[in-house]
């Protein structure tokens, strides 16, 4: 080895040793910080309300892949592969005045694959799925700009956004407010939202059942109450109402009615109600939190649904967190839904969409998070994997004819967040 090479190696080694020492040192700051935050009253907004903490950037990448349908559930000769979606989410927020923050969210998705088109009776009488012939490739971009104003015991926010797709354009806006009462032990929140969508389906010449141009509007309102119950337990309850009006059908789906495919056709009005209740309990002896959520859903198409979710937030070591969770979902069918129709309906409403069918779903997720400091910034990196399985047999009620298009999927996400 030449003298220069030895010198170079020695330098590299001492650099590595210095970096290691620096990392250990950062860890000791992290340890002291964790210890300080465990003290009563100090975990509060010591820096959180300082202006500087409100500048942050988040990036998240998700890959959503639907499992292939088994050949027993698709019509002979039909595509079995389904949707894959890659999603990039970016968020940046910063204060522009003492009590005023703005945030920008950008979402970009690329989708490809086939989707359920309509259902036909199979050879053995069980329904089988016909998938859309050609695989589609599409992109969607969402932009959302939000402004938030902080008062001493309240927050107000306003947002506006647009969503673009080849065959879709939507513009939306929202107003929100939050009020802290009872020495911050009670928080009331409420909001209003509106979305105006226009739908211009593609390939209408080849698929004459698709409409050329349609519109819909969605209005929503919610009211929420959070209450700290004890020092280590809290609960939240939120009631959301949504009204959909206009073209609420799916232009890319059909329903088989007395042997003939007709366009998916749903009512042009839909009232939806969701009541979500969440409970959080912190176990300081285990350095962990337990989360339990239940949601009841009802709409005037007569779908009733229940969601139960349990999660365990386990803090490990100094800067690591593991979050396993499970969710169970069960819904009843919409009044006018059928896998296919042996008789025409007087109201002319038809849909074989699996999302309106009776089914249950089980999903589980594992998420890992770690905090670290580098380049003078605090970071949070996360990774999660979720598997979702749905089936007629998972429903609370007995389902005699499950929809063959019920979806199973995997969802992988990686994320990186920093605060300045």
């Amino acid at each position, binding site marked *: 080895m030449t003298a220069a090479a030895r010198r170079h190696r020695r330098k590299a080694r001492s650099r590595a040793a210095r970096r290691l020492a620096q990392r250990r040192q950062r860890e000791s700051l992290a340890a*002291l910080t964790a210890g300080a935050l465990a*003290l009563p*009253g*100090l975990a509060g907004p*010591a820096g959180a309300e300082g202006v500087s903490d409100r500048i942050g950037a988040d990036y998240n990448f998700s890959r959503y892949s639907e499992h292939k349908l088994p050949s027993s559930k698709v019509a002979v000769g039909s595509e079995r592969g389904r949707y894959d979606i890659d999603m990039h989410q970016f968020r940046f927020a910063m204060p522009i005045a003492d009590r005023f923050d703005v945030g920008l969210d950008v979402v970009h998705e690329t989708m490809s694959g086939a989707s359920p088109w309509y259902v036909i009776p199979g050879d053995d009488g069980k329904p089988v799925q016909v998938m859309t012939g050609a695989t589609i490739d599409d992109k969607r971009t969402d932009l959302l700009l939000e402004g938030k104003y902080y008062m001493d015991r309240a927050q107000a926010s306003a947002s506006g956004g647009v969503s673009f797709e080849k065959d879709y354009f939507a513009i939306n806006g929202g107003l929100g407010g939050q009020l802290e009462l009872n020495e911050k032990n009670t928080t009331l929140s409420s909001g209003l939202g509106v979305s105006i969508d226009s739908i211009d389906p593609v390939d209408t010449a080849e698929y004459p059942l698709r409409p050329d141009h349609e519109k819909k509007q969605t209005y929503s309102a919610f009211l929420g109450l959070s209450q700290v119950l004890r020092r280590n337990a809290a609960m939240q309850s939120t009631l959301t109402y949504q009204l959909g009006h206009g073209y609420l059908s799916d232009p890319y789906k059909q329903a088989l009615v007395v042997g003939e495919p007709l366009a998916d056709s749903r009512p042009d009005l839909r009232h939806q109600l969701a009541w979500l209740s969440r409970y959080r309990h912190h176990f300081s002896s285990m350095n962990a939190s337990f989360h339990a959520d239940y949601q009841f859903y009802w709409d005037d198409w007569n779908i009733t649904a229940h969601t139960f979710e349990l999660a365990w937030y386990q803090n490990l070591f100094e800067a690591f967190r593991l979050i396993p969770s499970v969710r169970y979902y069960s819904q009843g069918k919409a009044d006018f839904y059928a896998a296919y129709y042996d008789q025409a309906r007087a109201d002319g409403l038809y849909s074989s969409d699996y999302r309106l069918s009776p089914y249950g779903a089980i999903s589980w997720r594992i998420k890992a998070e770690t905090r670290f400091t580098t380049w003078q910034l605090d970071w949070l990196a996360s990774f999660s994997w979720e598997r979702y399985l749905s089936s007629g047999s998972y429903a609370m009620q007995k389902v005699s004819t499950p929809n063959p298009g019920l979806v199973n999927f995997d969802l992988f996400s990686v994320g990186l967040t920093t605060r300045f």
Partner: protein
Amino acid sequence: MQARKLGFKAMGSPCELHLHAESQAGFERVAEAACAELARLERKYSRYLDDSLASRINASAGDPNGIELDEETASLLDYAGLAWEQSGGLFDITSGVLRRAWDFRSGRLPAPGEIDALRPLVGWEKIRWRRPHLVLPHAGMQLDFGGYVKEYAADRVAALCRELGLRHGLVDLGGDIAAIGPHPDGSPWRVGIRHPRAPDGAIASVALSAGGIATSGDYERCLVVDGKRYAHILNPKTGWPVSGLASVTVAASHCLIAGTASTIAMLKGACGGPAWLDRLGLPNLRIDAEGALSGPLAPPLRRRPAPPHRSAPEAPAGG
């Protein structure tokens, strides 16, 4: 809104509360709550009060059954354990017993053998701490919360003021400082740092809008024998006062962390302290025995020039 100030004495130090409050009544309400909280902590952790929890803990020394501690004290002990670990055993709340040998008012050094006699009573590793149960195994052992409870109190009072709806203010407990929030126009507080040899004059000024600042120095209480200074900060491993640095100031997300870091740097001394602080990555200012300033918070013109054989260390960006 105007800045209102209250000066008072607590925990053996002159204290100041600077609050931007809407009204005099609002100011008084918050100031009263802050003083009550300070009084609570002093009653609980002062070793000078016989009925304090600290005195009861120390009275339990030698009792194999030990004592059960409340949540707040348990978290303070956990924190002391962490600081002990992270400082390689230098930050040690059992070292207060060494003051029996070091009487900083007497003007005399400990008699030979006096320190050695106390050393079996010093050492965090000797105590048995299993939340919430504490055993001080040897009679005469002591825990001294004085090394960090004032910093904790500054953070607590700042948090309390925020809970009471105040956004803009500063808590100064004898130089242990926690910001409630910046001035109403968003501008930071200017905190003066004292010169260790002229404690009434500021040597540098630091901008603070969140978190805290703390200073450890050899000027607070010291002993001068034959022209040599013996500072009140004692090394638990030798039983002797630290020397080398005259003072260390650190800014951090909490005054408690700033105070722990500045104490550890003082204990590590002139050789180890500055390098340890640089690696820790917290904004800091240290003043050595000759009065030379160094560290990221030192005013640029008065910073000690880098020795010619070594390039200047990279200064972490403050903030």
